[in-house]
């Protein structure tokens, strides 16, 4: 390429302090993309890259706080994590890991294509990266919707029965309570189970106070599990979690941190779809070349960080022994 000689000139020129002003002017005439407050294309590129890295550092801290939250929850309830991990689909998670790695690879190849002025290859790579991001979200959608269908949710929703059969098994007649502030009900005296309602509880008509049906020790009996086994096994071999006598307390916490972390990651993938899509359209218009490809490089850095976060999320949620 002819410009290789000229850019060697620009590099030596940027270091000749005696002729600094003049050469900077020359660079601006030569490179229309060079902003007036930068002396050389290299200075502009490296400044932008440093800005991108500063942003990525905030991303690391952003996710880092959630990883700390994960560590605390797992430290306090290790059995919850080893139990609840079985509800996540390792195959789908593994496929999604590979999808993200491959889209990171096509992004890196795309950066190289831009650097070497291969505009067709750049567009192809950006399109493949875009498809990887969309594919990740589609798989994630199926994972989420399956879990929400089974009431594998955050918070109290986790403890709502899924089907009429399950509700019938788990539910007992709700006992109305006149004064929820001080009411102490002992609906199952033989079991010694006590239910206490306190003041800040919101007035919910449907609940009142019901006995925890899950049995004397809060444990469903094997018979109950067997009884409702059949209707729940339409598609999946998983036990309905409310009837699973092995479910440790606080299992809903696993799903809370699961949805928070994978959800935040998913939002980042969604943003990636937008930015990579924009790059793809711009590449079709021939906006990028071997002199000017900073947006491709910087979006690539962002996309690799999204990949990095998933590299940690995958074993921490899906691969608990």
């Amino acid at each position, binding site marked *: *390429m002819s410009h*290789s000689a000229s850019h060697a000139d620009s*590099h030596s020129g940027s270091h000749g302090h005696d002729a600094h002003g003049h050469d900077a002017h020359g660079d601006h005439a030569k*490179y229309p993309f060079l902003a007036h407050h930068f002396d050389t*294309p*290299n200075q*502009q*590129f*490296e400044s932008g890259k*440093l800005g991108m*890295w500063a942003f*990525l*550092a905030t991303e*690391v*801290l952003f996710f*880092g706080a959630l990883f*700390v939250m994960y560590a605390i929850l797992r*430290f306090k309830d290790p*059995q919850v994590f080893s139990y609840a991990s079985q509800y996540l689909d*390792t195959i789908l998670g*593994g496929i999604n*890991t590979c999808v993200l*790695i491959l889209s*990171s*690879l096509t992004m*890196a190849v795309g950066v*190289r294509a831009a*650097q*070497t002025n291969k505009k067709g290859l750049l567009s192809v790579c950006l399109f493949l990266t875009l498809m990887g991001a969309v594919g990740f979200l589609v798989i994630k959608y199926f994972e989420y919707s399956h879990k929400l269908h089974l009431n594998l949710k955050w918070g*109290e929703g986790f*403890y709502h029965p899924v089907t009429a059969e399950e509700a019938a098994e788990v*539910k007992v007649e709700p006992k109305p309570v006149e004064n*929820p502030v001080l009411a102490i009900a002992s609906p199952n005296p033989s079991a010694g*189970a006590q*239910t206490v*309602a*306190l003041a800040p509880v919101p007035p*919910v008509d449907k609940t009142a*106070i*019901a*006995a*925890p049906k*899950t049995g004397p020790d*809060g444990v*469903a009996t094997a018979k109950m599990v067997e009884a409702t086994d059949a209707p729940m096994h339409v598609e999946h071999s998983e036990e309905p979690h*409310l009837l699973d006598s092995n479910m*440790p*307390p606080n299992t809903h916490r696993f799903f809370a941190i699961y949805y928070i972390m994978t959800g935040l990651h998913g939002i980042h993938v969604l943003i990636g779809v937008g930015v990579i899509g924009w790059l793809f359209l711009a590449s079709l218009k021939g906006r990028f070349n*071997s002199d*000017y*490809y900073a947006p491709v490089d910087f979006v*690539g*850095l962002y996309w*690799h960080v999204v990949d990095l976060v998933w*590299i*940690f999320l995958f*074993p*921490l949620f899906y691969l*608990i*022994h």
Partner: protein
Amino acid sequence: MASHAHSSHDHGHGEPHPLVGHLVPYSTLFATGAALIVLTIITVAARYVDLGEANIYLAIGIAVVKATLVSLFFMHLRWDRPFNLMVLVGSMLFVVLMMVFCMMDVGQNMPTENKGNPAKVQQYLDANAPFAPVTAKK
């Protein structure tokens, strides 16, 4: 720019060199991608091997290796200005700092669990989610 001129010597291969940045050879990129896929398969396989406590450390170790590969080769940090690497490593060090101090605090906590759940959580669940199990099975 001395390092810049030098690196173009190493990886130029007669191809047009970009005005800025560093050109990573296809072989490096695809080898990195292949290594990442292989490590993913290894970490999935390691899930089914019982190593006790070591399982999570193995999983995190593999993840760290994968993250290093991505940042060094895909993100060009191997050839980048060292300051960019410092920004990344610095942010990670602060996360580790926060993690260490939080875990020290959590490790000092006295057990506050009542009937399996912390008291307030249990009361809330009793009222709003009456089907929540009260205690764990032994």
